[in-house]
């Protein structure tokens, strides 16, 4: 059981799914290939190689077990928090607007992931938000969303 076992299996399943979907798009004839022709060919070759990676991982598993893994603890917590923050940012952007979202996003990351003190987090976040506002909204006129949640809707 190693890395290749899982990734190979995953890719193989993806290849099966992709080739079925491509097949349903229509392969056409060799003289007049349909829209599914190219993705189908790519997915089939992809599937064959991923199967070989997968099978190889089973065959050589005991001999080459990965001993070198994990030099010090990996902080998966950070990865999780960052992804949550990014998805929350995307979701809230339309409601809270660019400025408020950015401020909250940076505070969350500096405080939660980099574990700085509250005061420092707020100061960093303030300046980052100010800088982004100046560059993107005023200098580049990027038309980033502004808050809709506070405006009165009819």
């Amino acid at each position, binding site marked *: 059981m190693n*890395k*290749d076992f*899982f*990734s190979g299996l995953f*890719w193989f399943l993806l290849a099966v799914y*992709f080739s079925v*979907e*491509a097949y349903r*798009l229509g392969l056409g004839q*060799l*003289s*007049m*290939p349909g*829209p*599914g*022709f*190219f*993705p189908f060919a*790519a*997915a089939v*070759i*992809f599937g064959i*190689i*991923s199967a*070989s*990676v997968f099978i190889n991982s089973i065959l050589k598993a005991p001999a080459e077990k990965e001993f070198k893994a994990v030099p*010090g603890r*990996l*902080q*998966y917590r*950070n*990865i999780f928090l*960052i*992804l949550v*923050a*990014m*998805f929350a*940012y*995307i979701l809230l*952007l*339309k409601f809270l607007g660019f400025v408020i979202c*950015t401020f909250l*996003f*940076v505070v969350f*990351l*500096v405080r939660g*992931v*980099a*574990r*700085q003190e509250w005061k420092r987090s707020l100061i*960093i*976040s303030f300046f*980052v938000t100010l800088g*982004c506002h100046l560059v*993107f909204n005023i200098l*580049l006129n*990027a*038309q*980033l969303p502004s808050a809709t949640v506070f405006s009165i809707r009819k």
Partner: protein
Amino acid sequence: METLSFLGMGLATALHPVNLLYCFLGVFCGTLIGVLPGIGPPGAIALLLPITFHAPPVSAIIMLCGIMYGAMYGGSTTSILVNIPGESASVITCLDGYEMARKGRAGPALGISAIGSFIAGTAGLCGLVFLAPPLAEFALRFGPPEYFALMIFGLSVLLYLAQGSMAKGFMMALLGLMLGSVGLDPVRGYPRFTYDLLTLRDGLGLVQMVIGLFGVSEILLTLEKGVRRKIFETEIKGLFPNLKDWKVSIFPITRGSILGFFLGIIPGMSTTIPTFISYILEKKISKHPEKFGTGAIEGVAAPEAANNAASSGAMIPMLSLGIPTGASSALILGAFIIYGVIPGPMLVKESPEIFWGVVGSMYIGNIMLLILNLPLIGIWVRTLKTPYPVLFPLILLFCLIGSYFIAHNTADMLIMTAFGLLGYLLKKFDYELAPLVLGLVLGPLLETALRRSLIMSRAGFSIFVQRPICIIFLGLALLVLISPLFTRKRYAKDMKEGTED
């Protein structure tokens, strides 16, 4: 003579104040982002690409080229000062560059790297000026089958040179082709894999994907190890190498330039391999090979020159054939297509102002890079010292804003974030990203070429073995793909010996 008058026209285009400004902005922003550890040229180009959308195509492309070599230069700075290569082409620079910095010779290391890059860039451009037009002329004869064969050749070189397993590299290229087929069918406009989602009709979007793959995933990889990071404290004084440094470096720079340029032309080669080969070559022919790895200035000069010459060389197939050679040039090709400019033989013939303008601006950009880097090195060092708790939220924000900026659409931000996670997982499972990006860009081109060839053929795949140019490219591709069975081990051993001991 015609070439010279065209070059004059190109320089005039590049010297137009607006283009000059875009070139400067590109070089400046590129260096700035290149200096930040973790984001290499592909990430930098993708991040800044949306900003160029409002500019006219020539200016936008000039700026993107500026970003590319700016980021490459910035990567060398971090290699020398912090021992963190900003991108894979400057991995080799770490070996002797960082040792020089530890011995208090950071200044000359940075200086020779800038000057070496400049000389190589200039030489590379001369080559580009004289080689690209005839190549384009020749390529006018290419039909879809020839293009298909050429792209297959480029992909197989990339796979051959992949650092990890070739099977995995191949898989990534294929995954790129598969993901690249999301959206409208390039030949008949039939929607594929769109699941009735409007966003997916135009495909997943190259820029969003690359920002995620190269920007977000790097942050995730860094942060899984915690936030702390050491920065090497050093005084930088005396940027100009002394007479002895010059004597030692001048021939390595020349050799590095020539080697880098010709290797750079080969599709799939990218800029990393030439730096390795030039380092190994210098070490082999040196009178005192034991000094390499302990701060030998020629160990900085040669690969830096090779690196820069290779990126000029890479512009030849990119501009005259429309075939990218690595992740960065693939992205620039993607940008060309976004602007509605199709690189290839017709570009040189029909829009010479774009082709020569870009070439001219590359020369101006090289001069700017030299001017920008020697006196302003202090700014880059200070940027480098930005505390990570400030830096990583900023980079993530840029990724988010950059992907929103493309079409003012939050769905693009979602795609970007998802590809950030994908990039992180791929690296954790030892898959490479460069073949993936090349596959994404080449996907639609490859598909169009294949389908048109088959339509032309009326006899299936036999068309590929009936045309001589096709046979040559496909034969070479086959040779490259089966050669590892015989040489792979020795090649890997050479690399190891050359870099480690």
